[in-house]
């Protein structure tokens, strides 16, 4: 259990804070009965200690540098009225609240916590339920969103919001969060130099993580599972994606990860497991794919449109229905030294590298692109015969798409 | 015992039996003879229920045989070609047939008679044709059914075994049984049978004792009598 630890942590924090500054205490039987009241009373750099209880408040505006600490997760109930907390000052910390019932609107993106044009914020240990948007960072830099739990119940895209959203915000760290049941778990737009680490984004309606026009970001060791469409990385440059797990994104338009117009990225050490498509790539160039595992996906990698100068090295392709699928006859990408479980060649000189090249694109994948219903003929003898003849003399698939150094054993 | 009325059977467009009537209601050995294609085997198989007639009725022991299989308890049959599941041993085959029929049997005497003891633990596929026929005979004679049907029983038998076979047939006749035999060996037929049933073009052409047949054809031995009877219709 996390809570006892958290409790001690909060308690310790609370006692240390008390040593040097007397906090403003908020509780149902206290002099100060609401958070808005306390914020109004406080001066810069005060600490507000909110005791356990239910506070029916919304539009709480934090316009000075304050530290808000919830003791034993006090509940802030917005009663579906609109936005709950808005931070418009630098150096604000919000820590340890249970926030529910954010108002839903078709015109305004109400959020549980919105940070506007502020710096050095810290939002941590927040539990969100019944939300529209969760934590919304707007033109705010150098902050941290840490260890929050966002549980949405989104059913339709048009009336649901994102768990954590960054808009024109730079140098923010998003880590140890759990986001589920939102529209997009984590959404970035025009946000650069962001670190997204160790989050778990699952069961979201659309994407577990969604990048748009955001450069130089890093995301590592996150888990994305069973999201409507997986993870989408679009129109962004120099993104580093490492050690993430993309699992069980199933459906006609679902993939572990979608790369669209992505250049100069590095994708390494990730695991793509049991997705309809492991990575769906469109118009992405100079990407280095290294040491990733593609396990039991429908398509390990599906390449659409022009993709140039990408390299795939030391990846494991294990038991995918199709390892690689191309929709054109052109190939400008390099596949070298990967392990392919479907490889049937031999290694006579025992150097660990197969003596015949491996052709990861099967004719059947081309047929399925043309006639999707043909998928029911997967693994039939007829298809094996056709694939074999295509392997011998490629007509429909790129003939230079070869791994000339297929490994005989898995990359560990 | 056996009562057949208006039996018709065609194979394709080729009529084999056309309105055959036959009644056998006493014991004795009945030799069913006739030229090739006269319908002997079809008649026997119809009685056994192996061939389904197009028209007509067959009763065995007073019971109509249509959609019936229990009446075969009353029949012991020796098929023409003795071929058995190759991987079974002789002993197992005998046990199996006993197991299937669930009737009292005296196979031990017959095994001794035909000196089959050394073969009991041999697989059927390793036996010679004659030995297989001996096993076949054991299977047919080991039960005590009132009706016996023997289709070419002499095939492949050595003289000693042939003598044993004739003894067995005689013995069965003395036990007041009805025995139907087909054979090409007229000497054998003359030796064992009481009544000749001669089939021609799908019907009974002659039924009576060997003596009656000789008288009718004016021949002195059975072989010539049969040959004469077979040629007469074409001159008629």
């Amino acid at each position, binding site marked *: 259990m996390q809570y006892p630890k958290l409790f001690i942590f909060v308690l310790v924090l609370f006692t240390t804070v008390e040593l040097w500054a007397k906090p403003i205490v908020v509780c149902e039987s206290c002099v100060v009965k609401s958070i808005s009241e306390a914020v109004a009373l406080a001066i810069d750099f005060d600490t507000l200690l909110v005791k356990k209880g239910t506070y029916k408040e919304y539009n709480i505006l934090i316009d000075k540098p304050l530290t808000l600490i919830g003791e034993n997760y006090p509940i802030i109930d917005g009663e579906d009225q609109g936005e709950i907390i808005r931070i418009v000052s630098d150096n604000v910390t919000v820590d340890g609240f249970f926030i529910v019932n954010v108002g839903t609107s078709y015109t305004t993106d109400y959020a549980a916590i919105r940070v506007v044009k502020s710096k050095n914020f810290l939002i941590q240990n927040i539990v969100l339920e019944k939300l529209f948007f969760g934590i919304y960072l707007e033109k705010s830099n150098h902050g941290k969103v840490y260890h929050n739990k966002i549980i949405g119940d989104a059913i339709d895209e048009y009336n649901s919001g994102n768990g954590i959203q960054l808009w024109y915000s730079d140098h923010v760290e998003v880590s140890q969060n759990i986001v589920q049941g939102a529209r997009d778990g984590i959404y970035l737009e025009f946000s650069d130099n962001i670190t997204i680490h160790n989050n778990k984004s699952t069961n979201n309606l659309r994407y577990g993580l969604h990048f748009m026009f955001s450069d130089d970001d890093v995301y590592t060791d996150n888990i994305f599972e069973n999201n409507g469409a997986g993870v989408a990385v679009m129109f962004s440059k120099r993104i580093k994606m490492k050690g993430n797990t993309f699992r069980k994104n*199933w*459906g*006609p338009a*679902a993939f572990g990860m979608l790369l669209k117009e992505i250049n100069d990225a590095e994708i390494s050490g990730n695991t793509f497991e*049991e*997705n*309809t*498509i492991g990575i769906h790539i469109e118009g992405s160039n100079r990407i280095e794919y290294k040491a990733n595992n593609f396990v*039991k*996906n*429908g*398509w390990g990698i599906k390449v659409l449109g022009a993709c140039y100068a990408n390299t795939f090295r030391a990846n494991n392709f294990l*038991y995918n*229905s*199709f390892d690689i699928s191309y929709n054109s006859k052109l190939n400008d990408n390099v596949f070298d030294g990967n392990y392919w*479980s479907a490889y049937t060649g031999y290694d006579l000189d025992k150097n660990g590298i197969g003596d015949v090249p491996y052709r990861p694109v099967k004719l059947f994948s081309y*047929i399925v692109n043309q*006639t*999707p*219903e*043909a*998928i*029911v*003929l*997967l*693994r*039939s*003898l*007829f*298809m094996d*015969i056709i694939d074999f003849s295509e392997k011998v003399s490629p007509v429909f698939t790129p003939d230079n798409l070869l791994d000339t150094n297929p490994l005989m054993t898995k990359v560990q | 015992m056996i009562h057949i009325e208006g039996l018709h059977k065609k*194979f394709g467009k080729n009529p084999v039996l056309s309105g055959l009537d036959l009644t056998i209601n006493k014991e004795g050995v009945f030799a069913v003879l006739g030229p090739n294609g006269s319908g002997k085997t079809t008649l026997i*198989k119809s009685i*056994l229920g*192996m*061939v*389904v007639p197009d028209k007509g009725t067959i009763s065995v022991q007073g019971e109509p045989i249509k959609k019936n*299989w229990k*009446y*075969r*308890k009353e*029949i012991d*049959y020796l*098929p023409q*070609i*003795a*071929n*058995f*599941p*190759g*991987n*079974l041993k002789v002993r*197992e085959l005998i046990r*199996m*047939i006993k*197991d*299937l*029929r669930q009737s009292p049997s005296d196979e031990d005497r017959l095994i001794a008679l035909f000196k089959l003891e050394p073969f009991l633990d041999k697989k059927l596929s390793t036996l010679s044709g004659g030995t297989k026929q001996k096993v076949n005979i054991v*299977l047919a004679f080991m039960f005590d059914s009132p009706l016996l*049907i023997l289709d070419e029983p002499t095939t492949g038998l050595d003289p000693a075994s042939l003598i044993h076979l004739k003894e067995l047939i005689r013995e069965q006749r003395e036990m007041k049984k009805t025995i139907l035999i087909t054979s090409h060996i007229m000497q054998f037929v003359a030796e064992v049978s009481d009544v000749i049933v001669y089939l021609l073009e799908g019907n009974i052409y002659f039924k009576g004792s060997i003596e009656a047949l000789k008288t009718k054809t004016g021949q002195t031995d059975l072989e010539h009598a049969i040959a004469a009877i077979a040629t007469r219709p074409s001159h008629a």
Partner: protein
Amino acid sequence: MRPLQLDLAMLKILKYSFYDLIRSRWSYVYFLFYLLLGFVLLFLNNDVSKAIITLMNVIILLVPLIGTIFGIMYFYNSKEFTELLLAQPIKRSSIFLGQYFGVAGSLTLSLVLGLGIPFVLYGLFKSDAIFDFTLLLVTGAFLTLIFTVLAFNIALSNENKIKGFGYAVLLWLFLAVIYDGLFLMSLILFKEYPLDSFSLGATMLNPIDLSRTLILLKLDISALLGYTGAVFKKFFGTDQGLLISMLMLVLWTVLPIWRLVSVAKKKDF
């Protein structure tokens, strides 16, 4: 009429046919082949997932072929024995069902033991591939039952051995390869039209495709769910696919058995 009525005589004939077959050299060859295949796949490759995929390929091709050939050979070779049985006080249905289940049973046993032993020794029960493997064996058993009875039907309707054998091998070739070729061609020809009901229907009408689909449901569900059609989605995305496929396999077994019995009843021997 109760074509599937079990009775004592049938069980006896089943027992003897079964004994006869499990003592034949070919049953051992068949059994040893699977045993060897299982050991090679598991202990040399050391990769259960890969072993299951290879086994699937073997099962959907070899099992029908062996079932067909064994079925047709057994039927023709036991012609005289069948005639001997026909003269016994036994119902015809008992004779043919007994022989059929004897052949299909011994083939199934060779398959299940031959593959089962190496997998058990490998420690399959501790692995999560147990379900996939069980499904493979169940499918293999069904294919044995189906193709043996199809072969029996062909043999029953063709007195001429060479013809019967030819038809049986053609049937296998048709269902294993040609059918899928025609299937694919019609998909490509009519790709402008919605084809998901057609393609599922065509799959149901071929027991080999049906078995393959059952295995695909386990091995390639990620790919199958990539298709947009609602019928596909319902079929592959829910338990419906498994249930319908199983039901169709049962039909594929029961209907030819029913035909076998009803034709055998009217046939002259």
